[in-house]
């Protein structure tokens, strides 16, 4: 199972047949493993890794650090549930450290992100404060180095 996941993490477009060859399993075995991973909700989907810098309109990515007042009995779950439903929000994590929720937001302009924070996020009841950090440059995401051109094989052919 782990070996299948590892391969799919590297390249989700490998066919079941290719995965079977790579791992020395039968195609049927791989079909079953992946079906189970999907059914169990371990694999949640398959997405392209996009280098946004290359798009004509580069979207703005921001990390919004939120301090939150946890609710009795629900803790952070209730606020997390509300934040994650906002469509601008790409990911939400509960953090250990100086703030509680890390909210990654994608927008088309800085203004749009600022509006989102001011009008939709910071107005939520239990959010005590927010601090917005804009991403200036993406170098690596999902384990992929985005501009790989300069990485040359350092090996010399000797013999």
């Amino acid at each position: 199972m782990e070996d299948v996941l590892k391969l799919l993490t590297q390249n989700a477009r490998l066919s079941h047949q290719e995965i079977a060859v790579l791992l020395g399993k039968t195609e049927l075995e791989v079909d079953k493993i992946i079906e189970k991973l999907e059914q169990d909700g371990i694999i949640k989907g398959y997405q392209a890794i996009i280098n946004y810098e290359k798009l004509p309109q580069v979207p703005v990515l921001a990390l919004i650090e939120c301090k939150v007042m946890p609710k009795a009995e629900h803790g952070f779950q209730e606020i997390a549930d509300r934040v994650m439903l906002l469509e601008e929000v790409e990911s939400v994590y509960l953090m250990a450290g100086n703030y509680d929720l890390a909210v990654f937001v994608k927008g088309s302009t800085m203004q749009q992100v600022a509006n989102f924070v001011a009008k939709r996020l910071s107005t939520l009841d239990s959010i005590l404060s927010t601090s917005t950090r804009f991403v200036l440059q993406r170098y690596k995401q999902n384990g992929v180095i985005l501009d790989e051109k300069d990485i040359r094989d350092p090996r010399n052919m000797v013999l």
Partner: protein
Amino acid sequence: MDPKVIFNQHLKNVKPSVVGKFLEIANEYKEIISLSVGEPDFQTPWHIRQAGIAALEQGKTFYSPVRGLLALREQISEYMMRRFDVQYHPKTEILVTVGSSEAIEMVYRTLLNPGDEVLIVQPSYLVYEPMVYMAGAVPIIIETFEKDGFRLKPEQLKEKITDKTRLLILPYPCNPTGAIMEREDLEAIAEVIRTTAMLVLSDEIYAELNYSDISHVSIAQIEGMRERTIVTSGFSKAFAMTGWRIGYACAPQEIISAMTKYHQYAIMCAPTVSQFAGIEALVNGAGDIETMRSEYNMRRRYIVDRLNKMGLSCYEPQGAFYVFPNIRPTGLSSEEFCELLLKKKQVAVIPGNAFGDCGEGFIRISYSFSLKHIIEAMNRLEEFLKELSLG
């Protein structure tokens, strides 16, 4: 009077390598995808690099003892016992060398006299044969065949033995074929060897890269072989440590003493910092080997599958990190095939005849490259073969 440069006659007689000629052509192309390199694509595992850094920081930058740090020889001794069930005394039967290349060279230098015959199993690493010439001895080639899985058969060995035979070079797991010798194969040739006085140089540098269900068997394990065998190996392939230049030879005391004498005058000692890193590799590196081996194994299965689907028959390699497919059905020679593949698809692989005349009709594909890189190269090779068959 003008100076006159007179070269060593043995050196003069050595032909330039096919690989060198081929690389010159390859270098003319900018965007090539290469499956030609013969070293791991992994970096040396971090904890091993750290041991090297620590040695530098602590100023352990002096010559080591001629034979190598005793602590390293003790680890090599334990490793040989643990992995291959052969006992070598760290003080007298192990020599640490500058890569296993030096170990091989020291064996030639200490054991060969002019006119001695050295049996070389081919296709194999292209260094064995020229170095025999340079030692003034005579290489006698034993060809191995795809139908035998490129294993050495006892009758082939028997045929080539004369009263001048001094040494057999046993190159398993084999670069470039990926062949291995299993215990019964070794038993069979040992039976022949025991009837002679010859010695065996067993180059086991790829011992850890064995993908069969049973792990590598050293010929030194076979009855009556330890006392006539020199096992050479090193850290380059198993631990991805090529640039550290560190290897070793294990053999009976008498042979190691003679090699040490030569090594002392020619080399002094292997790089000290690398020796400290080598200790760390042997003490804590077993997991790294496993990780790299399973990665190589995936690539191996992928390439063999793709090649078979393309219609290139291919002995399924069991060791090292090379695949050696048969390209004869294309009607091209190895060199023609490689040049055309380079020209049309910018993919570099090595012509099989670089590894001996019997490698003609084959190409060597290395899989010490990322899967992504390999997939792209295989796609191009497939297109190339299609275009060839369409004329």
